[in-house]
């Protein structure tokens, strides 16, 4: 696992990446909502080898009580990676990285939630990365916003996230783990597509201003595409519930 010993061509001669994608191509995302029984809202997201489960509980009574804020709901977020989610076992204790990500993910979702509707309560988001493959915070945010919506929590809009990076000197969308490890930059972006505002922005690596601007624009555009998919997934879920309810109510009519 030494990056000096295993040089991989990140971009082949025909301009394709390790997994055959174009530079501006995102890995297909699979999203599902309402996947957990006990949670008030839940979602499951798959992207590449990423497998992420998100649960939302709340609004519920703040516990311990001093957690409560008098004028709004308190948002809580835990981003956590399962010990088996990485090539080498990860200690289940929260790392500094996970603590930072919990904070920035919470801050990415805060502007979307109408927290002032539920004073003195908490809304808890649990993001469990079951398998990681680069871009987990973005997939986590995309899924957490679906789970919040699935829990019926009033929101100003959904939040969609996508990352761009730089591999072999070129801007590329949605880096996989292998690309991120050998790449030169990674920049996760989250926006609220409805109002087109940025709620998360991080970057590490080496970018000129022009590269940043091109990557940023690409990421924002991709977030809009992800947003369309989020809406479709939620609508399908509501239609499924509607059908379920109608099926259940039919036999009763016959009895009457």
């Amino acid at each position: 696992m030494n990056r000096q010993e295993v040089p991989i061509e990140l971009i082949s001669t025909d301009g394709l990446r390790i997994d055959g994608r174009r530079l501006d191509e995102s890995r297909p995302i699979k999203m599902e909502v309402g996947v957990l029984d006990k949670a008030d809202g839940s979602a499951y997201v798959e992207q590449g080898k990423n497998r992420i489960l998100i649960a939302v509980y709340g609004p519920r009574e703040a516990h311990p009580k001093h957690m409560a804020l008098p004028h709004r709901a308190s948002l809580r977020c835990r981003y956590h990676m399962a010990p088996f989610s990485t090539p080498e076992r990860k200690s289940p204790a929260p790392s500094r990285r996970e603590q930072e990500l919990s904070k920035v993910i919470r801050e990415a979702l805060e502007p979307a939630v109408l927290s002032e509707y539920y004073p003195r309560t908490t809304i808890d988001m649990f993001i469990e990365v079951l398998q990681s493959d680069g871009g987990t915070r973005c997939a986590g945010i995309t899924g957490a916003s679906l789970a919040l919506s699935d829990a019926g929590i009033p929101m100003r809009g959904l939040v969609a996230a996508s990352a761009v990076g730089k591999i072999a000197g070129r801007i590329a969308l949605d880096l996989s783990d292998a690309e991120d490890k050998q790449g030169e930059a990674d920049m996760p972006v989250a926006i609220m597509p409805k109002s087109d505002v940025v709620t998360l922005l991080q970057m590490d690596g080496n970018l000129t201003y022009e590269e940043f601007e091109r990557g940023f624009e690409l990421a924002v555009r991709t977030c809009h595409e992800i947003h369309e998919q989020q809406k479709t997934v939620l609508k399908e879920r509501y239609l499924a519930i509607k059908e379920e309810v109608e099926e259940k109510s039919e036999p009763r009519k016959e009895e009457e």
Partner: protein
Amino acid sequence: MSSTPHLPPVAAIAQKTVTDMLALGRRMDDRGLHEFREMKLEVGLIERACGSALINLGKTKVMVGVKVEEGQPFPDTPGEGVLTVNAELVPLASPLFEPGPPNENAIELARVVDRGIRESKAIDLKALCIEQGKKVFIVFIDIYVLDHDGNLIDASSIASLAALLNAKMNDYEIENGQVVYKSTLRPLPIRDHPVAITLAKIGKSLIIDPSLGEEQVMNARLTITSNKDGRICAMQKGGTGTLTVEEVRQGVTVALSRAPEIRSRILGAVGM
């Protein structure tokens, strides 16, 4: 788990004054929107450390100490030294700070400073390898916040770079796998000079170097760290608010244009 912070209440009138003045292009302390507070930077105050720096940025005071010790490399980088950045929000610095292990704010502060230094490759970590896969030098950067009046990220990042440039380690030779130190000193292998610049969004204004009073009413902040070639090496948005796409672009442009001046002041303070 990260939760919405309990912030001390800010008087509505204070909030309104800051916002209303900014709408007229003015700040409470008469600074320009893109002007830093008065900065005083001293180095080498702590003799026990390899390198140290104390920054006064307005009333914000941060001390940074650098220590170099022998240790083991990470398995995935056997031929490189190790960089470790830690930040302590010392309870004497603010009524908002409490004793205990670093909370998410301290962790974020340390990691944003770390990313700037790491991603700009400011320290030549390969030059800090003693024995491939077995023994390397670990550079510890310890950020000690002593008085919190806002913009801890920039103050810490400036002081960290100054402390790194101030740091000296003993010359050494390797005899039978053992490090034998000589009495002569040499500087750390510093190759780049990353500078973090933080902008706060208040109302529709983007301002540089927010004071605590401004941070308490800000909507969101954006930190951009750039290297001496004017390339971006780290970014971090913070706060529970939002930034428009245009504000992000504008913030990056402002940060890139102001960084060289801050960099030359750091180099001046360490006598380079």
